[in-house]
């Protein structure tokens, strides 16, 4: 596996793509790869979220073009929903990012949500780690088009950009649901359309009602790259952690991930060779002979972990 890590470090895009497949599918080889690659520094992880049709993919593409001018390597993870019935998915975010085709400095990977909550995908944390370790900075995570409660992105990203478009969603709905609360930067995209100024003032008054410092509210027209300088500057300012709370966000994420990773590995170890015991205990619980707590206590007896 060390050779795959070496190839990724050397900039081999095919190797990187295969590595992403390993971590996305939570294969043991993916874990080994992440261990071999190490941390690779503190890439700025930028989450882009917002309702469907707000222009998230187009905005990501325009941002990537700006960052390429500074010769930064841009990694993009674009999530689209999986069907809960067939498991299939139609991943179409690349269509809006075709201008970067052929540029090795922009790496775009489409991920299906595969039942993950909050508009993200299974393995998205590891996928972002992999891109960061491969030298990409920033790493952009574009969520599925979200409505109200899908706010997981603010845990996976250092900085959350909420993208809205005039008429694309009732601001009051957003207030209720927390989409505005997770925004470190608010973008009103398609700002050349009617209703943009109204949306900006509505967002401003919504922000005033809250107890927290108001996030910057920026207008963009992503299709024409308008307003992108100001957005990049706002993102860079936050990335530089000028009292932006980024360090705390990273610490929270690190803590939560370490717990989850250790719990997961421990659980794997615990269940190894215990499938018969699980089956027997489950039958006893299902038949009403034991409570779940009793059966769990018995299963855990003698486990020193």
């Amino acid at each position: 596996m060390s050779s795959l890590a070496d190839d990724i470090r050397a900039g081999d895009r095919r190797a990187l793509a295969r590595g992403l497949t390993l971590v996305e599918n939570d294969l043991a080889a993916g874990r080994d790869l992440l261990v071999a690659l190490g941390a690779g520094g503190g890439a700025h992880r930028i989450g882009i979220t917002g309702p469907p049709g707000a222009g998230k993919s187009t905005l990501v593409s325009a941002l990537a073009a700006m960052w390429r001018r500074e010769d930064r390597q841009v990694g993009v993870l674009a999530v689209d929903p999986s069907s809960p019935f067939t498991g299939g998915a139609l991943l179409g975010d690349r269509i809006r990012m075709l201008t970067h085709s052929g540029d090795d400095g922009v790496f775009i990977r489409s991920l299906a949500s595969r039942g993950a909550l909050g508009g993200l995908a299974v393995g998205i944390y590891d996928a972002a780690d992999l891109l960061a370790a491969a030298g990409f900075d920033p790493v952009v995570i574009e969520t599925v088009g979200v409505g109200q409660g899908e706010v997981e992105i603010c845990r996976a990203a250092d900085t959350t950009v909420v993208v809205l478009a005039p008429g694309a969603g009732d601001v009051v709905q957003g207030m209720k649901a927390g989409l505005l609360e997770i925004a470190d930067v608010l973008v009103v995209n398609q700002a050349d359309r009617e209703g943009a100024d109204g949306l900006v003032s509505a967002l401003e008054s919504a922000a005033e009602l809250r107890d927290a410092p108001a996030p910057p509210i920026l207008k963009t027209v992503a299709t024409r790259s308008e307003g992108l300088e100001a957005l990049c500057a706002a993102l860079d300012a936050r990335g530089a952690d000028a009292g932006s709370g980024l360090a705390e966000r990273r610490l929270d994420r690190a803590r939560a991930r370490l717990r989850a990773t250790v719990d997961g590995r421990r659980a794997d170890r615990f269940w190894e060779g215990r499938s018969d015991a699980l089956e027997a205990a489950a039958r006893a619980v299902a038949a009403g002979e034991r409570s779940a707590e009793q059966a769990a206590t018995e299963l855990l007896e003698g486990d020193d972990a």
Partner: protein
Amino acid sequence: MNAADERPIRILVAKAGLDGHDRGAKVVAAGLRDAGFEVIYTGLRQTPEMIVDAAVQEDVDAVGLSLHSGAHMTLFPRVLELLRERGAEQILLTGGGIIPEADMDALSAMGVGRLFGPGTPLADLEAYIRAEVAERRATAS
């Protein structure tokens, strides 16, 4: 990648060449999604370079090209060549469109997978891709 055979099949569906008809490609993309595939759809007027670039980054199992422009004898071999150049020859190249049988045979001899004419039931396409990908995944592990 042994336990990996459970993972969904990933396929890139693209419309190559200059003609602007992507109805067929869209129907196929939606159909394969409903069959449980993860379909990356990149839309119209894709050059072989763009197609292979996307296929490599997405680490797909297969590429499905829709072609009605008559340029199949240049586009399919070019995509195949680029896949090999990028070390991605394991990716199945298949597709469909209006392609004479003699050309299909010639392309098949070059290493292109089966090509499907108009009106092919989606189930045939699905079954073919599943079988091919299973075999290719097994050889890779």
